[in-house]
């Protein structure tokens, strides 16, 4: 853990900077994990398998699925009828990739690909906790997990989408998909204009995680999710039941 990163005399690039400080949180994480293993809540081997699995996750396979569907009509048809089968072609096996080999309550093995049209825009939420198509889209972003997003999206979808910078005319139907049972969803957005003749790889680059959740639409040149600051609710929900 080098503190100073100056270029050496051979002109080699300096190593990437590292945090040279032990934080209480780093220590807490290790202590919790070690105690859980010692008490038999899971084994060291279980933890290693889950860590390896979590490491492999990310939004890239879902972006590739969308790009492939844009260029290949037969694949698109398969994707919207059998998302689990279509996932295999982008390297995701919903059933056997999981350390359990059958999914878990947070990753049941039923993927549905929701196809947008110029007059229909899908957006995904789990009002129950934060169910998310993790095998193909990786860990959910912080805002997706918040009660704020989960409670408000079903009730005020247009306001919430506007906060993400997505405003749609009234003749476009917004369809919120609430994934509170065993199906997980990703959105297949409309292929944007200006991408004619692009390769699958080029197309996949503009299918960001937010496009796959449905809070953004793909645009040529936009390859990253917009920053999303999390604010406390202005008018918090008051519970009366």
């Amino acid at each position, binding site marked *: 853990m080098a503190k100073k990163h100056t270029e050496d005399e051979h002109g080699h690039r300096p190593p*990437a*900077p*590292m*945090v*040279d*400080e*032990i*934080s*209480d*949180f*780093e*220590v*807490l*994480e*290790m*202590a*919790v*994990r*070690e*105690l*859980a293993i010692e*008490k*038999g*809540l*899971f*084994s060291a081997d*279980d*933890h290693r398998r*889950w*860590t390896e*699995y*979590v*490491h492999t996750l990310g939004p890239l396979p879902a972006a590739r699925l969308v790009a492939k569907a844009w260029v290949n009509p037969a694949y698109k048809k398969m994707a919207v009828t059998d998302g689990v089968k279509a996932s295999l072609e982008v390297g995701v096996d919903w059933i056997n990739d999981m*350390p*359990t080999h059958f999914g*878990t*309550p*947070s990753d049941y093995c039923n993927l549905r690909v929701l196809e947008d049209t110029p007059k229909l825009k899908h957006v995904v939420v789990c*009002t*129950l*906790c*934060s169910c998310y198509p993790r095998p193909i889209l990786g*860990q959910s972003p*912080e805002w997706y*997990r*918040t*009660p704020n997003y*989960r*409670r408000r999206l*079903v*009730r005020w979808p247009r306001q919430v989408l506007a906060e993400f910078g997505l405003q749609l005319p009234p003749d476009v139907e917004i369809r919120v998909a609430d994934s509170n049972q065993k199906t997980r969803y990703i959105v297949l957005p409309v292929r944007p204009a200006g991408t004619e003749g692009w390769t699958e790889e080029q197309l996949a680059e503009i299918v960001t995680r937010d496009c796959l959740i449905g809070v953004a639409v793909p645009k040529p040149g936009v390859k990253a999710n917009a920053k999303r600051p999390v604010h*406390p609710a202005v008018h918090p*929900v008051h*519970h*009366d*039941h």
Partner: protein
Amino acid sequence: MNASSKNDTGADSGEHETNLATIPLLETIRRRGRVWRDLASQYGVTNPDPPWKVNLEATCDALSAEACALPLLERRSEEDELSASLYANVPFPERQLLALAHSMIKRGLVDEKELASRMKQVHDRLISA
């Protein structure tokens, strides 16, 4: 908290109650602990997540999937409540970690004193490495 803590749109947690009493050890970490956001900016590190985040996620998965010591829905529901109350000012994923430790201590899966002494051991090990 009573049954009125139920989600507006949800119906999942039934009569489930989150114990929101503070835990001295976790309060100390909350006050004193340096979060990744600050460390990363001080040391010029670009990784948006701390290296331990993946371990934390695997711990949460394993706690639910293996012996089911802490089921996913219960943990998430408690994390939501704790994130809106005790740990509201802690950024993510540090607050997910505090909420997990909180849930485990309140359930008796780990003991606060035991956790404190293990943290000391871990810390000593890390500085001697």
